């Protein structure tokens, strides 16, 4: 069904080439073959030839060689490949025509500007590199509805795109009062053939900003396809020549959108009505994202308010926290199922409710993105906690179906509503997960029956996620993730984060590491190939060793992931708790950061212990870990696991609670948690051993630690 289209491209290319031939011949007759040929104010001769071929063009004669080359690209046979090559030939020929037309400067009457000089390219290019100009829209042809076309271009201007216009649309937009010119980053180039100046602008961008040299055609096409986020809006009927030029744009990887019923080529040629739909499709096809600089909500929003607590007396309304059903869920979905920035609130909103109200709440955030993975849902979902706390007057506690949100009377007084809450989530998820997330939609319901119905659905999703998490084991995956975030103060420390050993700060698990790498590929979370298993019990892997050696700059030459006695993991200083060996008790103790008591059985309080553990050095017998590591199946595998724990602060026992009992039961020691001493039982080794003997703690029967 594309054949007629491809044939048209071939015909169009031949027509442009023929026109270029005769125009060039006329000029040569008039001025001689050695007469100079150049655009005004550029260092790149004929830019398209400069970028795609290795032909030097200084004279009319040289331009003939460009046309000779172009002719070899126009082949018989209506195939996609031939059509795209014919497109490239069209661009080469059109650039020759463009340069010929500029013999005496800009040949077009105002407002058309013709060729855009290098000086303008440099100025604007900076903002393309910078990202503050997020993309380029080329609008060509003749609009059937000039008002709609004007609306579309105004939308481009609002978004901050660089806009090129060519064809009748220039006069149409001028008549519609659309602001044109450099100040508005909107360049009316001239009649339809002048569209070549958009192309040679893009090629020069690659030459100037992409580090691409003369004649590196493949590199140039790849730069245009991946770096220059440009799309073409073709308005009105397309003749052969317009299609040939469009094929040239497609050859460079640009998306062409036509308001005519053209046969679509996914990603390259789309048919969309002019207006919103064309804007959206073009931006989506080229991955152009608009950054929200300021979130338009009536309350202040930022990390400064993260620690704010909203007391009962200041609370206007609350959700969850045991007082009502409330849950939150992030789901990924195919891109066509998510409408970006769609924020829906169903049920009673905040305004008009009496102070002290309690409402049920269900929050569903749907995200889509080419690099989004189902595994990242939990990573994004946990971010809800922080985002809601960023609001001045909004507080968030816990997660999933235990979530608890309060909104202050002051915030409601300022006009804060649930759609603002949705907007906060929308804006911040986009900002924080820019590389992963392309679209975010939020729907919030406060209608009891919907919240109830959604709860079962959400729980099924949590259960599915937990089931997946259980299959993520150190043995099952082939790579772990590093975290070197703390090297700024612990220069040689490398955290290795595996599915069954989270980062010692407790803030980064394996999925976070994986997401972190997707977000910032050059950042502190890098994939670490496990490599060969040298010792499965101690957790020794040659890939991990190599990574740690390199990234600790040769100071740590090997590391056992599951051992405290032999080459343990180093610690930065951020650990949630410290494990320390108590030789007399043949076991280890665990003390958390919050513990302020001066004494533990090893003779030191937390802060003294912390001083001997941190700084990126291996100290056998001492190790900083995340609290949840105690629940892992890989906890101190080399030393006998959880059964080695002889002492733990009361606070930690409470924190780990039923999960700790579950794990103790799992290893066949249901009484272990009660056998582990705490600060109320013993703070000296002697008292500790006495207690352990009395309760029959299993550590006493384990092989000696030292």
């Amino acid at each position, binding site marked *: 069904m594309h054949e007629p289209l491809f044939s048209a491209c071939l015909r169009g290319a031949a027509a442009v080439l023929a026109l270029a031939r005769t125009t060039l011949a006329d000029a040569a007759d008039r001025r001689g073959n050695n007469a100079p040929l150049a655009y005004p104010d550029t260092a790149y001769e004929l830019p398209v030839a400069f970028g795609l071929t290795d032909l030097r063009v200084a004279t009319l004669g040289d331009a003939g060689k460009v046309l000779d080359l172009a002719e070899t690209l126009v082949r018989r046979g209506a195939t996609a490949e031939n059509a795209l090559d014919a497109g490239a030939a069209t661009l080469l020929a059109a650039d020759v025509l463009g340069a010929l037309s500029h013999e005496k400067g800009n040949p077009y009457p105002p407002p058309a500007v013709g060729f855009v000089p290098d000086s303008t390219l*440099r100025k604007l290019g900076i903002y393309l590199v910078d990202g503050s100009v997020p993309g380029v829209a080329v609008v060509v042809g003749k609009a059937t509805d000039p008002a709609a076309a004007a609306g579309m271009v105004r939308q481009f201007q609002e978004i901050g795109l660089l806009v090129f216009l060519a064809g009748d649309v220039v006069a149409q937009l001028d008549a519609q009062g659309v602001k044109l010119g450099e100040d508005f980053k909107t360049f009316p180039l001239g009649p339809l053939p002048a569209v070549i100046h958009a192309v040679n602008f893009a090629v020069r961008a690659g030459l100037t900003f992409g580090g691409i040299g003369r004649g590196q055609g493949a590199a140039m096409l790849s730069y245009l396809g991946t770096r220059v986020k440009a799309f073409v809006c073709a308005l009105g009927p397309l003749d052969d020549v317009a299609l040939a030029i469009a094929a040239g744009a497609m050859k460079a990887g640009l998306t062409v959108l036509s308001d005519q019923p053209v046969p679509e080529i996914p990603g390259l040629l789309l048919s969309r009505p002019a207006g919103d739909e064309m804007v959206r499709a073009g931006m989506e096809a080229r991955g152009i994202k608009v950054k929200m600089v300021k979130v338009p909500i009536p309350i202040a929003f930022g990390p400064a308010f993260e620690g704010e607590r909203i007391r009962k007396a200041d609370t206007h309304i609350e959700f969850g926290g045991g007082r009502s059903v409330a849950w939150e869920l992030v789901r990924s979905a195919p891109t066509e199922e998510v409408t970006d920035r769609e924020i829906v609130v169903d049920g009673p909103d905040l305004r008009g409710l009496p102070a002290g109200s309690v409402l049920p709440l269900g929050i569903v955030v749907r995200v889509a993105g080419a690099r989004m993975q189902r595994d990242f849902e939990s990573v994004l979902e946990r971010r809800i906690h922080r985002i809601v706390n960023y609001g001045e007057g909004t507080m968030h506690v816990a997660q999933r179906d235990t979530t608890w949100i309060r909104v202050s009377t002051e915030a409601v007084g300022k006009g804060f509503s649930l759609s603002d809450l949705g907007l906060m989530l929308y804006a911040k998820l986009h900002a924080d997960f820019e590389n992963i997330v392309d679209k975010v939609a939020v729907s919030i319901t406060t209608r009891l029956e919907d919240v109830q119905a959604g709860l079962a659905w959400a729980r099924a999703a949590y259960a599915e996620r937990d089931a997946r998490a259980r299959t993520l084991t150190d043995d099952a995956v082939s790579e772990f993730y590093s975290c070197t975030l703390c090297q700024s103060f612990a220069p040689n420390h490398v955290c290795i984060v595996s599915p069954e050993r989270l980062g010692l700060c407790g803030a980064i698990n394996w999925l976070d590491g994986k997401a972190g790498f997707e977000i910032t590929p050059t*950042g*502190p979370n890098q994939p670490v190939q496990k490599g060969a298993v040298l010792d499965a019990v101690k957790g020794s892997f040659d890939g991990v060793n190599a990574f740690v050696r390199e990234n600790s700059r040769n100071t740590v030459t090997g590391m056992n992931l599951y051992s405290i006695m032999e080459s343990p993991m180093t610690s930065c200083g951020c650990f949630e708790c410290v494990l320390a060996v108590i030789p007399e008790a043949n076991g280890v103790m665990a003390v958390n950061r919050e513990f302020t008591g001066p004494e533990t059985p090893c003779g030191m309080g937390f802060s003294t212990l912390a001083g001997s553990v941190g700084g990126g050095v291996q100290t056998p017998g001492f190790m900083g870990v995340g609290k949840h590591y105690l629940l892992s199946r890989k906890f101190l595998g080399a030393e006998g696991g959880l059964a080695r724990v002889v002492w733990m602060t009361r606070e930690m026992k409470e924190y780990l609670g039923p999960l700790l009992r579950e794990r103790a039961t799992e290893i066949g020691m249901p009484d272990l948690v009660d056998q582990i001493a705490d600060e109320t039982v013993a703070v000296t080794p002697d008292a500790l051993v006495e207690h352990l003997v009395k309760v029959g703690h299993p550590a006493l029967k384990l092989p000696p630690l030292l």
Partner: protein
Amino acid sequence: MSVALPIPGFPGRILAVTLPAGPGGTPVTVGGQNALPLLPEGEHPNAPAVGMEVPTGPLELPPALAEAIGPFAGDPVAMARKCAGDWGARFLFLSLSGCHPDAGGQSVSFGAAVVREVLSATPAPVIVGGCGDEEVDARLFPAVAEAAGRPVFLSYAEEKNHRLVAGAALAYGHGVVSWSPIDINMAKQMNLLLADLGFPPDRVLIDPLTGGLGYGMEYTFSIVERIRLAGLSGDAALARPVLCHLGDAWKAREATDPSEGTWGDVGARGPRWEETTGLACLAAGADLVVCRHPSSVARLSGAAWR
């Protein structure tokens, strides 16, 4: 009996970077070495270079500097000539500090004009420093990049603004100084980010942030040393010349406070403080140092023998 000395060799080599000069000037090339500084082994094709800062805008100078460069306050062109001439600086660090809103707030076009004038007054290689105000610098760097009639280095690109600074440098063929806050991973990441933009690696200098003596110099020492070791060990993203700006030495009370009589002459203390900081940087591996006092140029150049 002869004993072979165990001389360590490194697999990597620091990339050579040239700060171009104007007509009649001498360009500065640094880097190119495959060994640690101040040691006899390995190749050291380029000695470290000592440059001077040329400030703009109103200056509040400590006594030692007031005496030496005070007469040039408000006349960066004359000072640039003096630095590159009599005082022997091999390159200039033109600081557009005068454009900072808190320092008089010279306009962006004024700043750009200063750059143009200084570049035509002396052929010495120039690094142009922003004013440090994020918003002003976002306008200043593109304007400077356009105004500079010959290639300079823009200082500095950091994580937040690197696209803008690199874009401005690419547009007009300048180099950039890539800055990180005493953080080797950030130093590396900055260079990876610049590479990702297609920025030519031989137009990048690393500024690891230099603390003055007694005020963080040891952190800088350790970071410079580690950057260098990583670069020599084969980490291409860190195998770049390092620039240390010694300005922080002049924030130390010991260098500037005349009220402490027992500390000796404040006019001598300041330059000594700067020199000491600079010597440490050179020992750590710095390839370029920027100083403020003319006497430091001679002293540090004397020490920068390889």
